[in-house]
């Protein structure tokens, strides 16, 4: 009896809230900032060529075997235009098999593959779901245009040069060896522990946690 009236009241409260319906084709959905659809490949505008060297790391780590890559000698390197000795020959991504786990992105050594937000990558025929290198690079350029990815500010060699030249001051306060780093971490942990013990003692729980 009372529950009936309560449920009626609940319904009215719900009616006052905005609808949760996503009117998808007419209204673009708002995706979460880190939404992950299938991966795409990035494009190095400076050379220009893909970042991908075809090193096969993504193909090996992929849990569903949806990536098929091959490496080749980079013709631009022979001409002296590019610092990449090897470059990707072909790159096939079977989106039907992809589970959007992002492992390929995690393991890529060259920042060459990123997760896109192409949630509507559906096709009318199943073979069309295998995206080739060109399609993936195009999609990567779109992602860059959307601001979901930006190229690294400097290449590794340039960063190394900068560190050797002007960055010595910053390198000075970093501990020299790995043993030093471990010692510093231990010291910091001990400090934290002491601080926490002091807090507990202040709250009157010191004897319980002393052991």
């Amino acid at each position, binding site marked *: *009896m*009372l529950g*009936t009236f309560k*449920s*009626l009241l*609940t*319904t*009215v409260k*719900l*009616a006052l*809230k*905005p*609808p*949760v*319906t996503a*009117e998808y084709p007419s209204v673009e959905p708002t995706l979460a900032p880190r939404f992950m659809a299938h991966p795409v490949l990035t494009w190095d505008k400076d050379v220009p060529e893909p970042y991908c060297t075809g090193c096969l790391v993504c193909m090996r780590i992929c849990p569903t075997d949806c990536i098929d890559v091959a490496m080749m000698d980079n013709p631009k390197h022979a001409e002296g235009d590019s610092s990449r000795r090897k470059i990707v020959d072909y790159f096939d991504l079977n989106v039907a098999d992809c589970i959007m786990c992002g492992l390929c992105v995690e393991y890529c050594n060259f920042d060459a593959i990123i997760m896109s937000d192409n949630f509507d990558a559906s096709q009318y025929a199943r073979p069309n779901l295998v995206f080739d290198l060109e399609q993936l690079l195009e999609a990567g350029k779109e992602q860059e245009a959307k601001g979901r990815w930006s190229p690294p500010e400097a290449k590794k060699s340039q960063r190394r040069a900068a560190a050797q030249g002007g960055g010595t001051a910053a390198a000075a306060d970093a501990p020299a060896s790995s043993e030093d780093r471990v010692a510093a971490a231990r010291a910091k942990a001990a400090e934290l522990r002491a601080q926490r013990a002091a807090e507990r003692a202040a709250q009157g729980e010191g004897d319980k946690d002393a052991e």
Partner: protein
Amino acid sequence: MSLLDLITIAIVVFVLFNGILTAVLGVIYAERKALARLQQRVGPSRTGPFGLLQTAADAIKLMLKEDVRPGSVNLVIFYVAPLLIFTPIFMLWMVLPFGPDWVLSDLDIGLLYIIAILGLSVVGHVLAGWASNNKYALLGSARNAAQLISYELPLVFAVLAVGLLAQTATDRPFSLSGIVEAQGSVPYLLIMPLGFILFIVGALAETARIPFDIPHAEEEIVGGAFVEYSGIRWGVFFLTEYAGLATMAFLATILFLGGWSGPFSDEYTFLQPFYLFVKIAAIILIVFWIRAPLPRLRIDQLMAFAWKIAIPASLVNLLLVATVVWVQHQNGWEPWLTSVTISAVSIVLAVATGIYIQRRREQRLRQFRQRWAQ
């Protein structure tokens, strides 16, 4: 009866019939929209502006659909049943007054006519269930018959109480327009809240709306009496349901909400249809609102509510009205005293009954938990 009369009647009936069909389209659209908002959805929004043409599109689809008929049905009854269901609902509109003089036939016994015709549509349901040669259809029609018989009693008692009360103010207490005139500026909703609630509950059961949609029960008996129907015949069943809802809302407006009367309705007669429409729409919206949160009752709960609560309550309501009207006759009370007495006593009774039901439920719940705790 001259030829002109016949032509006039034909035109009026044609207009009324198509009016009902259009009203049903509107009611279905309103239900889908209102229900959607109550459930945080948007409802139909693609066909036409705001999805306004959705129900029209559905109706066209139903008409164009193939009329599939199982081989084992009883042919004549199968085809006659939808008409038998729809005709009584249409017949009710013959006596429903849209205004002081806007009525096809202002019967002096309009109330009795309505009570008599209301029970007819169950015949169509039973015939449809029987002729379909389908166990689910038969179960649905049997449930429908049981439900209609159980809930006709509180409904009729509530309506009778209205007639009794109207007798104090008009000499045509069983005519629908007479009842509206008798209510004047104080609708019977304020005088007989108990009767109004009983009428709405009875109307929900009569039209098999949630929470009384046991005869349809899609999850158990896949739609009830019209499982085997398709296309336009199924559409007639659907149409009848919503026409029944509109009719019941119309009746509730006439009997309990003062019909077309409202502020300044006597001076400005153009306001009368407006008031009527607003009141009917309000009642229909309340029915949608009741539909949104409530689940379907079990058949034993339905019967228990009818025989343990609704019928005793409606009898008490009838007795109360009869007693007070009699006392008024004997002692020459003022009409307002009658109204206040009935209103106060029925509110007290309704609250007491509600508290009693709640206590009983809590008690049973405690017993149940104790039994399972051991």
